[in-house]
C-alpha cells in the first residue's frame, strides 16, 4: 500500500476555511464523534478516510448542519467557517448551506428536467436576475460539472434519465450552481463504476481551483489520488490529520498504518 501514487499537485492555499475545535457529536446516548480538531484549508481537497461507522460522514454532515434534520443528533464544540461559528444561534442553516454545498453518496437528482435541477438553487437564492443570466449560470455550472457536452442538447429531458455517473456529475453541477465556497462530498463515487469514478475524480481536482472540497471516501486509493490533505478517523476519533503524501507514506500513528496497510478496517 505504500506505493499508492499520491497527488503531485501541492497545497495551493494555506488559508483556513473551516476550523473545528473539540467537536463532539451524540446520537441519543451514543457518542459518535469525540474531540475532533481539524482545520480545512481553502482551495484544497481534504479527504476523510476510515473504516465504516468511524464517524467521518457524521462529521462531514456537521459542516453544513445537515445533522439538524436528525432529531436525536446533538453537536457540541465549535465549528467555524471563515471565523463565524456555524452553530451560533443567529446562523440560519439555509444561508450556511448556500455557502457549503453538498454532494451525496447516491446520485439524487430531482425528478425534473436537467435544466431545472441546476437552476433550482440559483432560483431560490435569487442568483440570476433574468432568464439569460440563469441560462448562462446553468451552462457554466454544467461545464464545471463536466457534463455540459453530454446534456447540452437535452436540457429539458429528466435528470433521472441519465446514467449513474452522469447523474452524479449533474448533482455536482447542481451543487456548484449556488456558487458555494466549500463543497462537501459524501462518498460521491461509491455508486459509480470505475470509468465514471475517474471522471468524477478528475472533476474534483478541477473544482479545487475554485472551492475548498471535503470528500469522504472508503477508497484509500481515491483519497491518495485526489486529496492534498487526509484525515483518518477511527471509532469516532480523529487519529491523524496531515498532508496526504505523509499519511500514506509515513504515518505517525500505529492505527493509521494498520488501516492503510489493510490490517484493520
Amino acid at each position, binding site marked *: 500500500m505504500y506505493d499508492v501514487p499520491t497527488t503531485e499537485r501541492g497545497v495551493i492555499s494555506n488559508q483556513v476555511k473551516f476550523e473545528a475545535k473539540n467537536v463532539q457529536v451524540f446520537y441519543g446516548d451514543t457518542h459518535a464523534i469525540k474531540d475532533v480538531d481539524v482545520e480545512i484549508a481553502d482551495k484544497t481537497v481534504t479527504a476523510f478516510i476510515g473504516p465504516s461507522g468511524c464517524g467521518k460522514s457524521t462529521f462531514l454532515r456537521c459542516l453544513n448542519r445537515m445533522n439538524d434534520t436528525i432529531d436525536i443528533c446533538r453537536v457540541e464544540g465549535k465549528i467555524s467557517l471563515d471565523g463565524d461559528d456555524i452553530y451560533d444561534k443567529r446562523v440560519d442553516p439555509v444561508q450556511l448551506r*448556500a455557502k457549503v454545498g453538498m454532494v451525496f453518496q447516491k446520485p439524487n437528482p430531482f425528478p425534473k428536467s436537467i435544466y431545472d435541477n441546476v437552476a433550482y438553487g440559483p432560483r*431560490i437564492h435569487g442568483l440570476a436576475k433574468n432568464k439569460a443570466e440563469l441560462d448562462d449560470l446553468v451552462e457554466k455550472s454544467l461545464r464545471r460539472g463536466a457534463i455540459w457536452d453530454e446534456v447540452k442538447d437535452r436540457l429539458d429531458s429528466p435528470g433521472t434519465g441519465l446514467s449513474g455517473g452522469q447523474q452524479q456529475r449533474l448533482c455536482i453541477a447542481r*451543487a456548484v450552481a449556488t456558487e458555494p465556497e466549500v463543497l462537501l462530498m459524501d462518498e460521491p463515487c461509491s455508486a459509480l463504476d470505475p470509468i465514471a469514478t475517474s471522471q468524477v475524480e478528475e472533476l474534483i481536482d478541477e473544482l479545487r481551483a475554485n472551492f475548498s472540497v471535503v470528500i469522504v471516501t472508503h477508497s484509500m486509493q481515491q483519497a491518495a489520488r485526489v486529496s492534498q490533505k487526509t484525515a483518518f478517523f477511527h471509532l469516532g476519533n480523529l487519529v491523524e490529520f496531515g498532508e496526504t503524501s505523509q499519511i500514506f507514506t509515513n504515518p505517525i500513528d500505529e492505527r493509521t498504518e494498520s488501516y492503510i496497510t489493510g490490517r484493520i478496517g
Partner: protein
Amino acid sequence: MTDMPMEDAPVRGSLTQVDARTKKRNAAEKRFKAYGIGAILIGVAFLIVLAISIVRSGAPAFTHTVMDVEFTVTQEEFDAAEGELFKTKAYSNLFISKLAAQLEEKGLEIEIEEAAIERLLGKVGADIREFYRENPNALGTPQRFELSASSRVDGYFNGRVTRDTLVESRFLMLADLDLVDVLHEAGIIKGAFNWNFITGADSGVDNPGGAGIGASVIGSFFMMLVVLFLSLPIGVAASIYLEEFAPKNRFTDLIEVNISNLAAVPSIVFGILGLAVFIQFMHLPQSAPLVGGLVLTLMTLPTIIISTRASLRAVPPSIRDAALGVGASKMQAVFHHVLPLAMPGILTGTIIGLAQALGETAPLLLIGMVGFVARGYPEGVVAGFTDPNSAMPAQIYTWAARADASFYDKAWGGIIILLIFLLSMNILAIILRRRFERRW
C-alpha cells in the same frame, strides 16, 4: 475455511428424481395457489351477483308507464266543458270519449269508466283543462299528451302486480287491468324512459311514480363541495406538519394514535357530534348540506391525513437531502419537491375519502337529512348550502323505509345512480394517479 467436517455432506439423489421433501413443498405451493384462486372466484361471484341483482331490481325505476294519446279538442268542446258545473269531470268525460273513439278506430271495444281512468292516471281532467286554459291556441289542432300512469300500472308491467296477487282497492281494480291490456294492445299505454327519476325531486309517500333523485344529487353535490374545500387543505396541512415539521415526542405520538383511532370511529358518532356542535350549539340550519358537509369533513379528515402521510413518507429522503443540500429551507424542500411527488397519493386518498363520504348515511340521520322530502331544487348557490335538502344515500334510505312497494324500485334505482357516481370518482382517482405519477 469452515469448521464443519466435510465428510458428513449429505448424499443427494439424481436431479431427475423429485425427492419427498420437494414434493411436499410443491404440493403446499399448489394448495396455496388454489386457495388464492378460490378466494378470487368467490369474490368475483359475489360481485357479479350483486351487480346483476342491483341492475335487475333497479332498472324498473328508470322506466315508467305512460299513456301516449293524441287528440283534438275543438273550441266548441272547450266552451261546453267550461260551461259545466263540474269542470274537471267534464274534461275527464271528454278525454274518455276521445280515448274510446280511438280504440274503436283500431277495432277494440271496452267500456271506460271515469273512476277507472282516475285510478290509472290520476286527475287527468284537471291536467287537460289546465293545458288548454294556458294554451288556447292549441284548440282545434291535434295535441299529443303523455300522461304518467300510476305506479301500480308500472308494477303490473314489470311483474310486481299480477292478476292473482292483486288486492282490489281504491288504487286498482281487477277490471282496470283489462282496460290496461286493451290500451296496451292499442299502443296507447307503453313504457318510456323516466327522466323525472334522474332529474326530479322527491314526492310524497303516496306518489311513488313522481319520485326522483335529482334534488338529492344536488344536495350531495353541495355536501361534497364543503367536504372537499375543508378536508383537503386541513388534512394536507396537518399531514405535512406532522410528517415533516413536528418534533417526534410523546405528544405527537398521542396525536398520531388518535388520528388512526378517529378513522375507525363509527360514523354515527360523528353524526351526533355534528348535531350537538353545529346544530344545537352553533344554530346552523337543520337538514342543510352545509352541516352534512361539516360532519362528513370530520369523518373524512382522518382518511385524508393517513393517506397523505403515507404518500409523503413514500417520497425518498434523498430528495429532501438534495433540496436542503442546495440551501432550500425546509418549507421549500417540502413544497417544491416532496409535495409534488406525493400529489398522486394525496389525490387518490382524497377522492377515496370523498367517495366514502358520498355513500355515508348514518351521520345524516342525526342532522335531519334522512326522511326530509326534498320537493324541489335549491334556489341558487347559497340556498344550495343552507336550505334543507336530502343526500343520495339518505334519499335511498328514505325510499326503502316507505310502505308503498313501488318505492322499493326507486331505492334500487337510487343505488344505481349512487354507484355510478362512486365508480366515476374511483376512475377519476385512477386517472389522476396515472397522470401525475413520476418515477425516479
